[in-house]
């Protein structure tokens, strides 16, 4: 007798404006099977799972459940097919208790149409017990740890008779013991016949509980390994090896190493971990790493946006104290943040007002803005950065992503940066604007600035950086010189493996 697998995805393709996220991807999951999905940032793991969860619709391909072709055209449909999606950012209501969260939207009602309080708690209890959770169903969710909240989400999935539970990086914010408990639970659930598909960057965890590992690369199937075949090297080999075009342009100016030194920068995301590194004037130092490695938080710590009491920053031989954002700005250390619209720009204000915001005090007298000067500075940046805008009085929200990013850069270039930190400088920007931003970064470096570029785009990191510092779980796991800037080396360091090509972040 031939039994069809629980789930089969065949030839799935999905494009977003400017990118092909998935190209002819196939995936099979058997009943009670634990499948791990692996791949670099942007390999298409999340998109594939979101298609299963009904968040995205595929452009091509078919999905079969129990051998029957189905259409998953929304989150509700996905739930109806017995698929539960546990997102990285949990979807729980902290102000409601466990039972209310588990039965949200499906509350049992009594004769008066009110919530049947006895029944909702009685119905929740078995799921909580099945997961080995030792909490009352009347506990508010905000009184639980992240791990316990995650368990409540799993309880909810079970209460919906989920046959396949998708977890997107479920262990990224758990402690070691919590992680072990979750992995145990995954094994228990699979023993009970529930299938699990889970995305993880942590190869150790995959080794513990996955029956099979499916690797994606560049939106395509890169291969798969059974539990027995899985090894660290084989996995990394499958994840890397994508075709990367080379467009590296080396520095023209002279470098002065040790111009910018950071010691013991820490952040709230990885308390207890510290980051130290040296950067040269005239170089572009890339920061690679997997999502959640703490790169953006390090940038914020350096810029005084996040509290990092023990950090020491030396600029041009002088120790500078940076306690608040203004201190960093006054020393010429600027940050173009990852989240342009929320942190980089006041989008409802005009191009002029955005460009002048950090430097206003430099061209005002008696607290009054010199408006002619302000307009001149804005116009200069708009023309030198070739911002496509009807004029400097246009509101930034009416510009495209690439032009918005140029406005962010314009803010800082108007003040001649000594250290320019760019966090994901080309995210969501079209190819043409990307090339312009790379050229700008190189010009800035050649002009004598230190450029720190945080990027999750492998092609970008490899082609723009003069050196690459790779971060793993809040620390720099190694620094690669230009000759060693290879995808494989970056990936090895990103998953926390030591390699001989890597140099320590600080030479003592």
């Amino acid at each position: 007798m031939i039994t069809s697998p629980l789930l089969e995805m065949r030839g799935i393709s999905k494009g977003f404006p400017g990118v092909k996220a998935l190209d002819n991807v196939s995936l099979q999951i058997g009943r009670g099977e634990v499948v791990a999905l692996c791949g670099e940032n942007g390999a298409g793991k999340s998109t594939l799972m979101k298609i299963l969860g009904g968040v995205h619709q595929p452009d091509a391909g078919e999905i079969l459940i129990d051998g029957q072709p189905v259409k998953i055209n929304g989150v509700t449909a996905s739930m109806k097919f017995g698929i539960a999606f546990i997102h990285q950012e949990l979807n729980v209501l902290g102000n409601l208790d466990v039972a209310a969260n588990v039965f949200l939207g499906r509350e049992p009602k009594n004769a008066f149409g009110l919530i049947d309080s006895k029944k909702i708690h009685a119905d929740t209890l078995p799921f909580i017990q099945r997961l080995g959770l030792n909490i009352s169903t009347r506990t508010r969710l905000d009184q639980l740890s992240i791990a316990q909240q995650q368990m409540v989400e799993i309880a909810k999935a079970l209460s919906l008779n989920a046959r396949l539970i998708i977890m997107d990086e479920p262990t990224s914010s758990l402690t070691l013991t919590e992680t072990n408990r979750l992995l145990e639970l995954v094994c228990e659930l699979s023993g009970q016949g529930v299938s699990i598909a889970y995305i993880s960057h942590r190869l150790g965890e995959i080794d513990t509980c996955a029956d099979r590992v499916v690797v994606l690369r560049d939106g395509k199937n890169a291969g798969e390994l059974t539990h027995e075949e899985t090894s660290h090297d084989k996995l990394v080999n499958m994840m890397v090896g994508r075709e990367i075009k080379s467009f590296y342009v080396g520095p023209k100016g002279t470098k002065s190493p040790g111009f910018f030194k950071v010691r013991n920068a820490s952040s709230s995301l990885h308390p207890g971990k510290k980051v130290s590194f040296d950067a040269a004037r005239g170089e572009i130092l890339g920061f690679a790493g997997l999502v959640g490695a703490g790169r953006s938080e390090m940038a914020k710590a350096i810029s005084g946006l996040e509290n990092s009491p023990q950090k020491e920053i030396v600029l041009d031989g002088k120790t500078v104290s940076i306690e608040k954002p203004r201190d960093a700005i006054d020393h010429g250390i600027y940050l173009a943040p990852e989240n342009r619209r929320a942190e980089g720009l006041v989008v409802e204000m005009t191009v002029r007002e955005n460009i002048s915001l950090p430097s206003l005090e430099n061209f005002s007298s008696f607290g009054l803005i010199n408006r002619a000067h302000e307009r001149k500075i804005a116009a200069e940046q708009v023309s030198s950065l070739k911002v496509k805008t009807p004029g400097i009085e246009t509101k930034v929200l009416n510009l495209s992503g690439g032009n918005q990013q140029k406005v962010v850069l314009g803010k800082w270039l108007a003040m001649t940066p000594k250290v320019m930190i760019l966090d994901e400088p080309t995210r969501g920007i079209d190819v043409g604007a990307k090339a312009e931003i790379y050229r700008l970064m190189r010009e800035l470096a050649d002009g004598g600035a230190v450029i720190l570029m945080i990027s999750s785009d492998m092609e970008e990191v490899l082609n723009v950086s003069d050196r690459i510092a790779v971060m793993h779980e809040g620390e720099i796991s190694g620094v690669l010189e230009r000759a060693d800037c290879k995808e494989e080396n970056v990936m090895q360091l990103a998953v926390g493996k030591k390699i001989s090509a890597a140099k320590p972040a600080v030479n003592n």
Partner: protein
Amino acid sequence: MKKEIGIFTLLVVLCAVTGFENPRFFSEANLTDNANLIGMRGIFSIGVGLVIITGGIDLSIGSMIALNGMLLVLALTEWHWAWPLAAAFALAVPMFLGLCHGVLITRFKMQPFIVTLCGLLLYRGIARYIAHDTTKGFGEAENFKTLQYLASGRFHGFPMPFLILIVIAIIMWVVLHRSVYGRYLFAVGRNEEAARFSGVNTRWVIASAYVLAGLLTGISGILFAFYTNSVSPSSQGNFYELYGIAAAVLGGCSLRGGEGSILGVLIGTALLLVLENLVTLLGIDSSLNFAVMGAVVLVGVLADQIFKNRSSKKIARQPK
């Protein structure tokens, strides 16, 4: 600017209609009386407007006016302070209270609504307590004639409060629309996080708006005390915070923050007063006073929102 022109047109139309129906509207007595009230209300409304631009709200205005009026009366008539000292005291207290609001909001992350609502209750209670809940008047005392003249006198026929408002409005216009600080107020109101990333000391900017609101409230509190010539702690300044908020919103301030202008607040204040005046002059039942105001503010803001939705759709439809 479109918004200001819109409500200014409405103001002119209302004046014309009222004057046409009842010529007493344009009588010198009525006009001076209106100018006087516009002066006193406009000053604190500008303060409320500043706070609203930062994305906050100040509900404590009316009670602050009662408290600082009461302190002024007590200082002049019972404690026999020299008038400059008494006036300085009557300004310093609301500024200090504004600073407290600012600190609670920025340092302790409390919500402006809650902080200033508690202020509304607290200051009213204190004002009544220190006055033993009785009305206190200035009486016939002579030693503060100068202050009395500054607060309720006439200058070339114009009531002093109106002239003071004009001076304050000009200063605040420069501060809000031409100074670095004013730009920071708008930036913080629109996107506090982005302002912080640009090196703006957002906490200081927000807190200072409450201090400024306190100062302006203090000034109008002194004017009101001399206008009524006695301060009844339970009724002085009642609902004034709402006049201020209504004037600011009618004048184009958005409670989401980051939007508003001094001119708009002024026109808003005048419009509300003309509406009150209209109710009296046109013989409309005075119990409908608040209802008329509420309806006009509602319609005004609704019209603005509809207009805004249309124009944003127009932008979306533009070919790229």
